[in-house]
């Protein structure tokens, strides 16, 4: 087994320094905002995620190597170009894992944690799941192992991918140069991804390369006239890390427990968040449709008389 370092572990001191730097910049010029308890929760979720990752690592490494050793079509070796290819393929797999993380409630139960802050700053990048091991996300990476790339290389480039995604969690940077915005994930694109405005829901899933969103129709640009509001469509009412980590799993459990049909039980896991058999809750598609209808209504409505009091 190839012995490669864990990039994210090495980057932790830099993450902390950059968070402090953004905090001071935000304090001076107002372009970033922090809140003590929110920051504490985000960073504790990051710490817990590291512990959870360490606990489940043996299983994932073992499983990945088993697939690679038994089903690999080619022996890709360890040349530099293999690392580059692995980076691109892993980013593609990340796109689909991330997209399913928003479109399938089972995977959302783990990913929701990352979106649970109403703030958007570098500490939000650390607000990571504790329960990713309980989702089928790893299945999206199997084709890379079957192609013949050694799992250690894939885990290494995935770490670099995560480090890249750290710096885009900021409001301190407005836009990057146009060519960069076109090719790569940026703070602007990722602000849209974290926004809960109906206009911006379920967009910009990319890790590094925006090509995947442009290719698969999930790209939405940040509009100057509509500032991003961050968080969930139903925000959490707590900073308690345990409640943050497990709230959606509990919700799924309760829904499955009270469901009357096996089909509904399965759909509570596999359908988008917000799905119910009777439509009593709203999925992101329903929220966006309702918003579009309100917008259309506003445009078609006759101009109202001006209220002199306003």
């Amino acid at each position: 087994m190839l012995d490669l370092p864990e990039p994210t572990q090495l980057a932790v001191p830099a993450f902390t320094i950059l968070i402090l730097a953004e905090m001071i910049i935000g304090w001076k010029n107002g372009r970033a905002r922090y809140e003590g308890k929110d920051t504490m929760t985000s960073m504790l979720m990051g710490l817990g995620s590291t512990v959870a990752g360490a606990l489940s690592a043996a299983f994932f490494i073992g499983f990945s190597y088993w697939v690679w050793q038994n089903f690999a079509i080619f022996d890709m070796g360890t040349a530099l170009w293999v690392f580059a290819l692995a980076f691109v393929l892993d980013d593609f797999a990340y796109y689909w894992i991330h997209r399913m993380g928003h479109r399938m409630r089972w995977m959302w139960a783990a990913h929701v944690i990352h979106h649970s802050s109403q703030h958007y700053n570098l500490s939000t990048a650390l607000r990571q799941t504790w329960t990713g091991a309980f989702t089928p996300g790893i299945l999206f990476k199997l084709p890379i192992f079957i192609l013949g790339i050694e799992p250690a290389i894939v885990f290494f480039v995935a770490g670099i991918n995560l480090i890249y995604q750290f710096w885009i969690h900021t409001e301190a940077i407005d836009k990057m140069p146009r060519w960069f915005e076109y090719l790569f994930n940026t703070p602007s694109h990722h602000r849209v991804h974290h926004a809960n405005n109906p206009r911006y829901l379920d967009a910009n899933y990319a890790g590094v390369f925006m090509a995947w969103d442009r290719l698969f129709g999930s790209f939405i640009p940040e509009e100057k006239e509509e500032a991003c509001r961050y968080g969930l469509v139903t925000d959490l009412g707590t900073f308690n890390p345990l409640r943050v980590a497990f709230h959606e799993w509990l919700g799924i459990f309760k829904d499955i427990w009270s469901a009357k049909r096996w089909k509904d039980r399965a759909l509570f896991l596999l359908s988008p968040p917000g799905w119910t058999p009777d439509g009593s809750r709203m999925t992101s598609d329903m929220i966006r449709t309702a918003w579009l209808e309100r917008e259309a209504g506003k445009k078609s409505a006759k101009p109202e008389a001006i209220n002199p009091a306003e």
Partner: protein
Amino acid sequence: MPLFQFIGSIIAVAIVAWIASRLFHNPNKLTVDRVIRNTARYCPHLNLEANSEVFISEAGDSAAVVLLGDHKGIALLTALGDRVVVREITETTKVKTMKTKTGVAFDIDDFTQPKIEMQLQEDACNSLLNAFQRLTKSHSEPVHA
């Protein structure tokens, strides 16, 4: 992760969070304007200004908006740090209310926010509870064709 590294990380997290709380003060309390604005954000289908009664806790950390229009219900708001969390309760029969020494408390079926307490004067407290009871009565009445 070695234990000393874990403990060191916890201490580092606490220090960073403390610095954040010192640099970014959070003096904002809920006001009628803020309550209406946030309720409208969560419940864009409601015509709030025409059809609502607003109650704000004396501590400014929670509020209730009684919705009187077509969408009868209650919106409960809490200040979470410097942000606001809103819960629209359309089935008031599923919410338990109780009078406390300082006001009123709502028990809701919500894992991340199971209880919301409001400090209210006696008059406001009674007024809110009466409005809530009226809503509960209207929700529990059978609909006749």
